[in-house]
């Protein structure tokens, strides 16, 4: 009953708000939405607490596994934890929008709750087609939320690109699902997985189905070259929505790949392609992140980079690496959510999120500044943040399977993204204010007017999320490793869904506190500190000698090239998407 309620409760309250919202006072709407999100958080926490010991499976409508029809909702510990993160982030985002958006009506809250319901349902569902339906629901709600401030041209255009690219991806996923259905006659993840494993042998159909199903999820996860929509959508979406986009929605794409692989395709197809695209995203996202001035866009590119690392962690294919990925995801959700909320605070105080406009104007905002600083350090992997634990555990696991390149990659990604945030902190909160006259483009502050001071209800969620991200690395290693073992076993999942028994693995606990992990964190931190310095040096023309000028010109050309690739042209994005499918297929068949 808990699992259905987790999905149904936000839907019911959302329907109520959509039906009666126009006649309800704003306070009632806020309280109802926040209470619902809190209730869902409690329900998912309860599921998480029960999942390691009692099977958390529901067959909707009473169609048990014996009938061979019906849709299961199942929560293994990792899925429950992800749902819990989702609900907690939604709670924070709704609390933040209490004062934010003072002129909105209940529709915003209704959409946020539907978003929460769709994400929980996507996490829990054990059925391929049902996953597609809720994946589409997530996209539809996300499009509506992205275009929420439809008065702004960039907003609607960003939302449109987002919708088209996501939809193409989702239709390819559905094509893959149809292939699986045609071959196995099953739609349940567990049942289809058992069928394919029993049939043995890979075959072209299995490869094609995996590639096509993964395409939709990789579009959501913003792997290169499917990532173009992400920066467009994040740059224009309202800040509380960005928190959910970056914190969980993108990560749900990674979850989709991981769940589909281990429940259905484990051992039948290689994950090399996912690793390659993920690594490309980690690098490209980090580089683009450094090149941005628009703070929300910068944070969006850093999400691309971090999600790329998550994909590589999943693609390593071992429970140890998955445990590291889980740490990383939890830490990233908290830290990135906090950073977006801090950016939102800047936006409604100064009507701009362009770092060049904001030079020195953050001096009066000590808490926001502290969030930026600590957030940057967390992105660099300072212990005990969840990102530190994730780096450490995943790097160790990657070395074990001979992926020597993973450690430099993750250090580089961490250093560049953290350095970019650090530079923003230096410029905005430590710089000296420039003369009057911004760079033109003012943005809608999303409130009725700019706020004199940031109210506590907007700051508390940011601080709480940051604290959670910082403490995520302290999660006990034993249960995390066990959860990863359960997740990364086809038999454990099939046993849970079809037979209703809980696997109890006994692996070694995950241990982030290793010398190499601490060394990696130190290296990333040092490099991160070097990024603002390097940017400052390259900004001073007199200091540049010949070699430096040459390097600078090459870098400028490269960055112009990169910028021109991210053109906002929907045709480009669709063409890149098909190219990505081809690359994915090539890498999956080759190895």
């Amino acid at each position, binding site marked *: 009953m808990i699992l259905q309620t987790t999905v*149904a409760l936000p*839907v*019911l309250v959302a329907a109520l708000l*959509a*039906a*009666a919202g126009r006649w309800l006072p704003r306070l009632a709407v806020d309280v109802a939405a926040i209470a619902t999100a809190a209730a869902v958080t409690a329900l998912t926490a309860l599921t998480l607490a029960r999942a390691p010991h009692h099977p958390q499976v529901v067959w*909707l*409508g*009473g*169609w048990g596994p014996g*009938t*061979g*029809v*019906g*849709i299961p*909702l199942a929560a293994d510990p990792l899925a429950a934890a992800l749902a819990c993160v989702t609900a907690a982030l939604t709670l924070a985002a709704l609390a933040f929008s209490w004062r934010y958006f003072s*002129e*909105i*009506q209940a*529709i915003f809250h209704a*959409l946020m709750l*539907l978003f929460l*319901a*769709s994400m929980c349902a996507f996490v829990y*569902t054990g059925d391929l*087609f*049902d996953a597609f*339906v809720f994946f589409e629901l997530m996209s*539809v*709600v996300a*499009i*509506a939320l992205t*275009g929420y401030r*439809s*008065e702004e041209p960039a907003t*609607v255009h960003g939302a449109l690109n987002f919708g088209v690219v996501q939809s193409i991806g989702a239709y390819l996923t559905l094509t*893959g699902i149809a292939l699986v*259905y*045609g*071959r196995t*006659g099953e739609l349940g993840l567990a049942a289809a997985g058992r069928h394919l494993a029993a049939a043995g042998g890979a*075959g072209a*159909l299995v490869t*094609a*189905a995996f590639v*096509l199903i993964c395409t939709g999820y990789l579009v959501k996860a913003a792997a290169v070259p499917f990532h173009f929509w992400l920066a467009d959508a994040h740059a224009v979406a309202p800040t509380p929505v960005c928190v959910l986009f970056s914190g969980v929605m993108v990560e749900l794409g990674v979850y989709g790949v991981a769940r589909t692989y281990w429940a259905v395709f484990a051992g039948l197809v290689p994950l090399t392609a996912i690793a390659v695209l993920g690594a490309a995203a980690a690098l490209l996202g980090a580089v683009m992140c450094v090149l941005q001035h628009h703070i929300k866009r910068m944070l969006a590119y850093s999400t691309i980079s971090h999600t790329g690392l998550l994909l590589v962690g999943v693609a390593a294919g071992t429970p140890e690496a998955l445990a590291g990925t889980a740490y990383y995801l939890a830490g990233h959700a908290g830290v990135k959510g906090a950073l977006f909320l801090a950016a939102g605070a800047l936006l409604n105080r100064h009507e701009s999120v362009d770092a060049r406009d904001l030079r020195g104007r953050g001096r009066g905002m000590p808490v926001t500044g502290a969030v930026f600083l600590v957030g940057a350090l967390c992105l660099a992997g300072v212990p005990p943040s969840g990102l530190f634990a994730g780096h450490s555990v995943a790097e160790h696991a990657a070395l074990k399977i001979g992926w020597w390149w993973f450690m430099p990659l993750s250090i580089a990604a961490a250093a560049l993204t953290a350095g970019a945030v650090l530079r923003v902190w230096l410029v905005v909160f430590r710089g000296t204010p420039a003369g009057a006259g911004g760079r033109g483009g003012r943005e809608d502050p999303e409130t009725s007017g700019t706020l004199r001071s940031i109210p506590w209800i907007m700051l508390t969620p940011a601080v709480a999320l940051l604290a959670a991200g910082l403490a995520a690395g302290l999660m006990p290693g034993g249960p995390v490793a066990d959860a990863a073992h359960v997740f990364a076993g086809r038999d454990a999942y099939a046993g849970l869904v079809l037979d209703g028994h809980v696997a109890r693995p006994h692996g070694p606990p995950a241990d982030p506190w290793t010398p190499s992990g601490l060394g990696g964190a130190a290296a990333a931190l040092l490099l991160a500190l070097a990024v603002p310095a390097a940017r400052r040096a390259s900004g001073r023309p007199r200091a540049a000698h010949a070699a430096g000028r040459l390097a600078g010109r090459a870098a400028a050309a490269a960055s112009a090239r990169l910028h*021109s*690739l991210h*053109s906002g*042209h929907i*045709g*480009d994005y669709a*063409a*890149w998407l*098909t*190219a990505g*499918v*081809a690359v994915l*297929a090539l890498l999956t*068949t080759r190895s």
Partner: protein
Amino acid sequence: MKAPARTLLFAAGAAGTAAVFTAGALGLPAFGGAAHPYADRAVEQAVRQGTPNAVASVTFDQRVFDTLGEEIILLAAAVGAVVLLRAAGREDRDDGASLRHGPAEVSDALRIVGHLLLPVTLLAGVYIVAHGHQSPGGGFQGGVILGTAVHLLYLAGDYPALQRLRPIPLLESAEAVAAAAFAVLALAAAGQAATGRVPALNTAVGVEVGCALVLLVGKFFEQALLVRDDGPGGQTHAGPGAATREPP
């Protein structure tokens, strides 16, 4: 990217995508084959539950959670369209010109399309009304026809009559309530017999789809028929939805 480069990139990508899809399709059982394990199970369960239309049994009984997701999508899309199209004419009004809705600017193409579609829609509508949930058709198909047919009134009569026929705030509420009812029925009525549950769910879907489509199409009508009156005396901006939805 220049257009030729884009087309080239697409050609390469499409070749790869087509290859992987073809390889997959060749691994499917031959078209029209006899082996459909899930279908056999679904038909068996439908017959056991006493639902003559197996498709309705799958949609509203065996895989009702899919349909729940679909109904939430409809709800989200209708609500989303209301949000996205809410600022209808706010900036137009700012520049002094008043707005009215009228059939004056309906293009010939619109009329032709409407007239071509009218008989088809009516035929289909009659069919849905004549047959219950036991034969092909059901809440969804009926809802679609109801939702669209209302707007063909526009072509027969004039716009004000249509507006009186669809009070948008009420429809929004009705749609959301129907979605909520569907969710409750789908999740809470699992124990009841399918013979009672399927028609009830069918009705909820019909109401929701009908309301959602009237809303969606209505919003587009409002956008399409917004015309400017440059002189005074024209009717002021009259979209009921837009007027109430606009933030102060």
